[in-house]
């Protein structure tokens, strides 16, 4: 089952932002090679197998470009 | 068109401005006349100059400023110094004779009222000197009815002090009775 849903058109890019990759405890995000309408390179969806649905990518994404189903948004950063 | 321009002046704390407001209220609220009241005072609340101008008229008042009053009620020497010079020729000067020993030369119609002495020593209430002056003003001019004055006084003085103030008014009126105006 897909846990991470990307909205690539909302993304402002792995190069300029990249917060999702930084906050993912499994470092699952890498840049796509396909630009979105605004010219940014959104992340590729993570390897679902390894995703723990911690929700970090979702709550840290400043552009509402990632949702995590069943994401534990109440988890802790520390 | 009967219109009378009055200037009541003294130093802060003597109640000159309140006297003007009472006069205006008596005219408008109780005698159904027209009146305009304006005022000027120094920024210190006690001891500086304080003056009010009241126009009492049978008709609506046009120009609302008093430039040359028909009557000057002076409660202090400072008031005479400042305002006596613009009193109309044949104008009436009513002075607190305890505060102003000698009226300025050249004013023919002068009424002397020992308001400060009466209020301090007879009524034991220095604050009612202004009511004594109002009584004198009424007796000398009948500018508004006595009933109107009495009702207006009751509107403005602290509760329980009506009798004292009306008594003061009466003494002011009596002080003028035998003076030639």
């Amino acid at each position, binding site marked *: 089952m897909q846990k991470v*849903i990307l909205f690539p*058109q*909302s993304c402002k890019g792995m190069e*300029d*932002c*990249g917060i999702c990759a930084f*906050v993912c405890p499994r470092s699952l995000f890498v840049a796509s090679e396909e630009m979105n309408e605004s010219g940014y390179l959104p992340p590729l969806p993570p390897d679902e197998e390894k995703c723990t649905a911690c929700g970090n990518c979702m*709550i840290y994404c*400043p552009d*509402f470009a990632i949702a995590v189903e069943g994401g534990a948004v109440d988890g802790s950063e520390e | 068109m009967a219109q009378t321009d009055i200037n009541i002046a003294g130093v802060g704390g003597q109640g000159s401005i309140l006297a003007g407001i009472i006069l205006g209220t008596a005219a408008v609220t109780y005698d159904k006349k027209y009146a305009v009241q304006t005022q000027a005072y120094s920024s210190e609340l006690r001891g500086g100059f304080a003056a009010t101008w009241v126009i009492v008229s049978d008709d609506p008042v046009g120009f609302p400023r008093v430039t040359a009053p028909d009557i000057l009620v002076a409660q202090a020497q400072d008031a005479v110094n400042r305002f006596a010079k613009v009193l109309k020729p044949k104008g009436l000067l009513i002075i607190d004779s305890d505060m102003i020993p000698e009226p300025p030369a050249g004013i023919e119609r002068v009424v002397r009222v020992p308001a400060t002495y009466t209020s301090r020593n007879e009524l034991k209430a220095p604050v009612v000197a202004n009511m004594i002056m109002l009584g004198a003003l009424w007796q000398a001019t009948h500018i508004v009815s006595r009933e109107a004055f009495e009702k207006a006084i009751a509107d403005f003085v602290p509760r329980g002090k009506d009798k004292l103030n009306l008594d003061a008014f009466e003494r002011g009126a009596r002080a003028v009775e035998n003076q030639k105006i």
Partner: protein
Amino acid sequence: MSEKTHPLRKYMRPQVKKTTFCPGCGAGIITQALLRAIDELGLTMDDFVFVSGIGCSAWIPSPLLNADTLHTTHGRPIAYASGVKMGLPDKHVVVVSGDGDLSAIGGNHLIHAARRNIDMTVILVNNGIYGMTGGQTAPTTPYGLTTITSPYGNAEQEFDISALVVAAGGSYVARWTTYHPRQMTKSIKKAIQKKGFAMIEAITQCPMQFGRVSKQGSAVNMLKNYKQNGIRIEKAAKMDPSELQGKIVEGVFVDCDKPELISSVAALQRRTGGKE
């Protein structure tokens, strides 16, 4: 293919397709923290009026949020919000604006709203610089930092805004960096529920301006800095001031209950017969 949407999308105006923030800007993280707080409290956007001033963060509610929003002049949103709240005492009034807006030009309104303890939530987005106008020194810019208007180093001391609002009389004051969005959400929930003046000082990265002048660079580097230098208030209390150099003290600075303005005004109206 069924169109999936972001779960918080329902709080945004459908006409607004994307945020107005630069890539990596923390304003979006704060927006999310705010919307998640509303979501978790089970409130709807009709329970709120949002007021903002001028600056990047003033665009968090306007036009993004699908609610009554009032976008005002520079520095004045708390004053406008006070009027809104007096007219709509049953609504949650939330001010979202920047450190320049609320603590420099609008500092007087901030302290007096706190003093009055008027029931409102202020989310003060503190990026330590004037972002929108091109990177000038703000009252929150660290001492010594070189900016476009302090080319020889900032000669001024920086504001401790949370301490200021505590001193002025706020009922709830908390500070979190964007590295702690979950705690931020929790504090925003508390702030919304607090009957009184509540402020969240949200320390956030401005990679475009602050990141550039501070040589911290990217959003990720700035978040790393928050991770390394953020320190809880409980822990900071036991530390020597010299040890706190360069640290960002986070946590709840005050959480108390005291007479609130709107209720006091309503009580006064009942007493004078103006309201049943």
